[in-house]
């Protein structure tokens, strides 16, 4: 039976921690078993003392690791619950891990509370961003072998995994996620480091812009946690709502909940215009209605095209200046320029292959019209070449492409000689990750 499909499965675990979502599951499966937000709720120690510790899984009983100072709330079911003084934080910045304690909590939650596995029994494959640093990778391997005592470990780059997921060893990967939009050329399964181009205009930035847009339209969205009872009102009529009294709410929690509204608005209403932006044509398109959690509902016309347009035109025409800017948008360029800039760093012999394998991934590429628009913008920039865009129609595949690639990679028979084993780690130390996971 060794020749049957999946005969090489070694029940490896695949863990993909992205800025917005964390995905975890078994290698060889076609979708992750657990998908939950990477953001977590945090209560400092003194507040959590008087509470009953109901979630045992969060507090690990591994004795050699220091106890977390506060209490962590992970998973959709926990983070969306209002708690006084609970902060909402994200351990990642620019795709890189900043808060290692929180990352440990996330791994714990994923492996123990969601997958219910003993990490000592399963090899572990972890994904990383293409611009991950040596220190970060060494910390990852330390965490895997010292704390979780996995028998084998491997860390692979997101674009390479995405390329695997779509079955193309050579490709140009456009990943437009929550925090970062990046373009990475992959050649024969290796990332071409000189071609990595990234900028912080992605889903989160668009969310903030939409929030500012609401301000301009004099809309005041009320998050779900403040709504006790809402009543039906006619379109454009003020909301008829009974609000809850929720004292001591932290600003971060409020903002997280606000962003949830914006996220829903973005997914259900926003759209990209398929060719060069033209407000006159767009104004003739049908409007779309959106209902806020407090029952207020109204229709959106050209506004719903303006925010996503920032992806292609990050100029002052579309960006609303923020009172407290989170990212510097002045050096940013449109996605199609990013692709072109990355392309010219590649060798001329590799360029045609890159352009005929342009893979689109990440949640922010799911705007209706995104792929059409991308083709409309990219094709004239490389007139002599054939441009072929590969965008999986399945939204799950687009959101979890790097996890999927990891799942494929870790179930290949030939891959098993690439794992970093416990023995190798003991012999060579953490520096081995740079040598063996060199893709």
């Amino acid at each position, binding site marked *: *039976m060794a020749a049957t499909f999946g*005969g090489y499965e*070694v029940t490896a675990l695949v863990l993909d921690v992205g800025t917005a979502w964390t995905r975890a599951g078994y290698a060889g499966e076609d979708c992750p078993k657990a998908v939950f937000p990477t953001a977590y709720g945090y209560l400092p120690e003194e507040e959590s003392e008087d509470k009953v510790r109901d979630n045992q899984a969060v507090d690990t009983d591994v004795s050699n690791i220091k106890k977390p100072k506060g209490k962590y709330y992970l998973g959709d079911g926990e983070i969306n619950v209002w708690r006084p003084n609970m902060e909402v934080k994200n351990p990642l910045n620019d795709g890189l891990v900043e808060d290692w304690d929180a990352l440990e909590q996330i791994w714990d939650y994923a492996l123990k509370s969601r997958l219910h596995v003993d990490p000592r029994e399963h090899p572990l494959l972890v994904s990383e961003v293409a611009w991950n640093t040596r220190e970060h990778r060494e910390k990852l391997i330390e965490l895997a072998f010292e704390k979780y005592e996995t028998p084998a470990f491997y860390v692979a780059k997101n674009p390479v995994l995405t390329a695997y997921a779509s079955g193309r060893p050579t490709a140009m990967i456009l990943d437009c996620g929550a925090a970062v939009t990046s373009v990475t050329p992959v*050649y*024969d399964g290796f990332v071409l*480091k000189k071609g990595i181009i990234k900028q912080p205009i992605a889903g989160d930035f668009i969310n903030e812009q939409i929030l500012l847009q609401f301000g301009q339209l004099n809309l005041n969205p009320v998050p779900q946690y403040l709504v006790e009872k809402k009543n039906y009102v006619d379109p454009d009529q003020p909301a008829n709502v009974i609000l809850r009294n929720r004292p001591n709410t932290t600003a971060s929690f409020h903002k997280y909940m606000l962003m949830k509204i914006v996220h829903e608005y973005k997914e259900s209403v926003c759209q990209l215009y398929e060719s060069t932006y033209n407000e006159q044509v767009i104004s003739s398109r049908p409007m779309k209605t959106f209902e806020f959690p407090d029952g207020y509902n109204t229709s959106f016309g050209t506004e719903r095209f303006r925010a996503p347009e920032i992806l292609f035109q990050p100029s002052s025409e579309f960006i609303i200046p923020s009172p407290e800017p989170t990212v510097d948008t002045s050096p940013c360029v449109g996605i199609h320029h990013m692709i072109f800039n990355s392309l010219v760093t590649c060798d001329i012999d590799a360029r045609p292959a890159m352009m005929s394998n342009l893979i689109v991934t990440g949640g922010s590429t799911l705007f209706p019209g995104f792929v059409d628009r991308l083709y409309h913008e990219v094709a004239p920039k490389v*007139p002599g070449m054939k441009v072929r865009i590969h965008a999986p129609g399945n939204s799950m595949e687009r959101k979890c492409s790097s996890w999927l690639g990891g799942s494929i990679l870790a179930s290949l028979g*030939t891959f098993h*000689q690439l794992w970093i084993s416990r*023995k190798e780690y003991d012999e060579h130390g953490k520096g081995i990750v740079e040598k063996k996971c060199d893709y």
Partner: protein
Amino acid sequence: MATSDVRDILQISRPAPGAEGTPKKSTKPEKEKKPEGISRELFQLIGGAPPVAFTKPTYKQKPNLRQKAAHWELREFVHPGRTDQLALLRWTKDINNNITEDDLQEFQNLEVIHYTDEEYHKYLLDRDWTKEETDYLFDLYKRYDGRFMIIYDRYDFPGKRRTMEDLKDRFYFVQRKIIQQRPGQDKAEIAKYNYDKNREVDRKRNLCMLFTRTSEQIKEEEALLEEYERIEQNEKKFAKEREVLIKSLAFQDISTTVKRKRSMTNGSSTPATEIVTPVLSVSASESLPKKSRRASASSVGSSAVVEAHPPVEHVRREKLPPGVIVRSQKIPQVKQGAITKVTKYLQEAGLGIRPSMPTENVCAKWIELQKAIVSLHDLKRHVEKQEHELKTKKQVLEKTKAAAGGSSSSQNW
């Protein structure tokens, strides 16, 4: 008529008396049995033609719950490509089953010819390349299995910036040199490592030029290419026509020579005058009026060999459709817009659409008449138009006059 009679007529031998009722069953081919483990669809593709007849649906068998479950075991296995005996666990069904080597193929490492220190100092010294850097290059080559695209991407030797061509040139040079110098190396291998750096650089520069073209340039290029193809096709067509022409001329030549030969056998006049005659006849027919020429063309029979092939121009002008035709058909058609008008005029004059007695003279007159009607009609229309224009112009003039008068009066006022 019984079947036995038919059989007798067709001289088919009578089947055995016992097998009368079941001839079909015996002729039906034995259905091939589907082996275990192959799906039905796959088997239909590889194992004979699929059944044409409607097959009775078979229902899924009830699961036999009492049967003992198949035994699966979590077993350790060691990948043959690993050196550290990492034992990974995997579920296997059969205890006796082991993963064979070819199931888990190892990575093939590229063969690289390495130099020794002595060899390096003897043959490979280079002003631009230190030994450390060459070592570094070879290390990368091995590490990335000879993918120069990636070697170039990761190449980071302090104080040096290399192009991909530099790296390739150095590497292949070292390989060639060692094969050449080291005894016992297959010298034919050198061809594998041939590398012409200048040519590569040129090629890449040209490719870059192609890459940087704008879409207008590409369009222009395509248009030019199309134009070129068109010209070439025209040229071909022209050449073909020319060839046909030459052939027919050659035929004339042959016929004249035939004639000359004949005349020579006759032993009459000098050949020179004989050759001139066809040319003369052509020019003569050219100068003749149309009618008489046609007559001459029809009159030429098989009397003269030359005249059996009338001059090219003659044939071209007179396009005669094949078969029998009526002369009235040769009357040219009036253009589409004027047909109704012309027929109207003709009816007014008590004439039909076609001449009732289409002799040559009548037809010629008829054509003249048609032409006259058409020009008359055109003139009439023109006159009407001009009159109308005149009218409007006059109106405008009056208006402006009135306005001018009004304004002048107002000025006075």
